[in-house]
C-alpha cells in the first residue's frame, strides 16, 4: 500500500527522506536503549537476568530492523514521491504549532483558560468565524468542562490566574 498516493499535486519533501528520517530516529532510540541497558548491566545477576538484559536485546532487534528498513526505503522510493505537499504540511503545522504553545501554557495558565484560547485561535485563524461565535464556543466549552469534571466527576484540572481571580 503506497501511502503517498493521496498527496496529489504540489511539491513537498520526498517520501524517501521522511522514510529515512524515521528509520534514523528509531536507530537513535535503539542506541540510547543499548547505552542505557549497558549502564544497568545486561548480564546475569543475583536474581537472574539483570535489569538491562531485556531492553538490551530489544534495542538490538530495533537496530537490526532499522537497518533493513533503511535499505528498503532507499531501494523502494526513487526520491520523486512526495510525502505531502507543502500546502498539506502547512495545514498540519497550523495544528501542531498552536497545540505546542497550548501544552506548554497549561501549567501556568491552567487547563480552562488555555483551552479556551486554543479553541478561539483555531476557530478564528482556520475557520474565520465571527467573534461572536468564536467567543460563545471558546468560553462555553471550558465552562461545560468545568461543570463536568470538577463538579460532576470530582476530577480537578490544573488552574491558573483566572480561576484564582474568580476564587474557584
Amino acid at each position, binding site marked *: 500500500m503506497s501511502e503517498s498516493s493521496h498527496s496529489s499535486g504540489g511539491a513537498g519533501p520526498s517520501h524517501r527522506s521522511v522514510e529515512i528520517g*524515521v528509520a534514523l530516529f528509531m536507530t537513535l*532510540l535503539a542506541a*540510547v536503549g543499548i547505552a542505557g541497558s549497558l549502564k544497568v548491566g545486561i548480564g546475569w545477576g543475583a536474581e*537472574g537476568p539483570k535489569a*538491562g538484559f531485556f*531492553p538490551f536485546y530489544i*534495542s538490538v532487534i530495533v537496530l537490526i530492523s532499522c537497518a533493513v528498513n533503511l535499505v*528498503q526505503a532507499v531501494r523502494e522510493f526513487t526520491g520523486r514521491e512526495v510525502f505531502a505537499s507543502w500546502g498539506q504540511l502547512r495545514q498540519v503545522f497550523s495544528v501542531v504549532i498552536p497545540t505546542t504553545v497550548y501544552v506548554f501554557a497549561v501549567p501556568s495558565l491552567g487547563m480552562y483558560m488555555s483551552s479556551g484560547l486554543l479553541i478561539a485561535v483555531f*476557530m478564528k485563524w482556520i475557520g474565520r468565524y465571527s467573534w461572536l461565535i468564536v467567543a460563545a464556543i471558546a468560553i462555553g466549552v471550558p465552562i461545560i468542562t468545568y461543570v463536568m469534571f470538577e463538579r460532576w466527576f470530582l476530577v480537578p*484540572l490544573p488552574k491558573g490566574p483566572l480561576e484564582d481571580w474568580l476564587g474557584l
Partner: protein
Amino acid sequence: MIEDIGNLFHGFSVVLQPYNIMLMVLGITLGVIIGVLPGLGGANGIAILLPLTFSMSPTSAIIMLSCIYWGALFGGAITSVLFNIPGEPWSVATTFDGYPMAQQGKAGEALTAAFTSSFVGALFAVIMITLLAPLVASFALEFGPPEIFSVYFLAFCSFVGLSKEPPFKTIAAMMIGFALGAVGLDQMTGQLRLTFGFPHLLSGFDFLIAVIGLFGIGEILLTMEEGLNFRGNSAKINPRVVWQTWKELPRYWATSLRSCLIGCWMGISPAGATPASFMSYGIAKRVAKNGKNFGKGEIEGVVAPETAAHAAGTAALLPMLSLGVPGSPTAAVLLGGLLIWGLQPGPLLFVEQKDFVWGLIASMYLGNVVGLIIVLTCVPLFAAILRVPFSIIGPIILVMCAIGAYTVHNNTFDVVMMLVFGVAGYLLKKTNYPLAPMVLAIVLGDKAEEAFRQSLLASQGSLGVFFSTKLVSTIMVLGLIALFWPMIQEGWSRIRRPATA
C-alpha cells in the same frame, strides 16, 4: 457449564440495575459520537474517558467503557455509508458498497444492513466468549512463566506475520514499544533503568498517553492534511425501510456465518478487526452469486465486512479476559482500566471476580441490543455531528485529548508527551509503521519481560525452557509459524505452482 449459565444470569441481574442501564445508554451514545468524529476512535476515546471511571465500581466502569467500544464499532458504519469516510479503520471495507448504496438513495437500507450485521457479528462473538472464555481461563490457570511468555510470543508474532505492513516495520514499531515500556522502575530488581536521570521518566511511559497521542492527535493531523470538506448523503431511516431490509437479510445467511467465523478467528489472534473486514469482503466478493456487482452498491458487500469487523472487535475481548492478552488496542485500553481499578487481568479473574467478568459478558449481550436500537433510531442526529465544521470540532477534540492525558496521572508533563506521541503517530502512520503492536507492546512489555526472565531464572539461562514441555513448545511453534507466515505461504505456492502447471 451449568454453573456458567447461572453466573451469566447473575451477571444480567447486575447489569439490569437502573444505574448500570443508564451507564450503558450513556456509553453507547458517547461511543457512537466517538466513532463518528474524526480523531476519536474506540481506543483513544476510552483512554480519554477512563479517568472519569476511577471513582466508579469496576463493574459499572467496565459496562460503560465496553459500551463505548460497541458504540464506536456501530458509529464507524455511519460515516462510511453516509460520508464515504471510514470513522474507524475497520469500516474502510464498508465504504466500498455502503457509499454507492447511499448515493443511489438507499442509505437507509445500507445503514440498516450495516447495523444489523454488526449486531449479528457481535452476538455470535459474545456467545462464543460465553462458551469458550471460562474453558480457556481454567486451562490457563495451570500456566507457568514459560507458557505465559509463549502466549505473548504467539500474540506478537501473529502481528508480524498477519499485518499488511512490511514485517520489519512491524518489528521495529513493536520493539520500540517494548523499549518504551521498559523505561523506569524494573519490577524484578527494583532498579531504575533507561531514565538517564530525568525525573519525568521515573514512572516510565504510560500507554494511555501513547494511545491518546498516537491515535487521537495523530489522527487529527492526518485529517488536517487530507482537507476538511465532509460532504455527505442524508440519512433517512424509517421503520418500513428497516423492516424491508430485515426481510431481505436472511438471504445472506451464508455470508453472514462465514464473516462471523472469520471475525472471531481474526479477533482472537491480535490481527484484529481491520484485516477481518477486508478478508470477509474479499471472500464474499469471490463466492457471492452477484460478486461482480460488488463495489457498485451490493447489500451483501455491506453485510460481509460489518459482520466480520464487529465479530472481531468483540472476540478481541476473549484473550483479554481469559489470558490477559488483549486482541486489539481498544481491548488493551480496557485491560489498562482493569489494572487501574485494582483487578489482575488473566485467568484468575474468572475465579476471583465472578461478578465483574459475568457482568461484563452480560453487558455485551444487552449493550449490543441497546446499541442497535439507539443507532437505528438516532442516525440523523449522529450524522449531524459530522456536519459541524472541523475548525470547531478539531480544537475541541484537541482539548479533550489534553484533558484525558492530564487526568491519567494529574501530570502536565503527560500533556507534552501526548503531543510528542501525536506527531510521532502522524509520521509513523504516513510511513506505514503499524501503531497497534507498538501500543500493545507498551502495555504488555513488563509482563512479557517478567515471564521471560522468570522462565530463564528457573532454567538457569537456557532458552530450551520454551521448548521443554509439549504445551509450551506447541504454542512457541505456532508463534514461529505466524511469524514466518508470509514466507511459508510463498514457499507453499511455489511448490504447488510447478505441480499444477
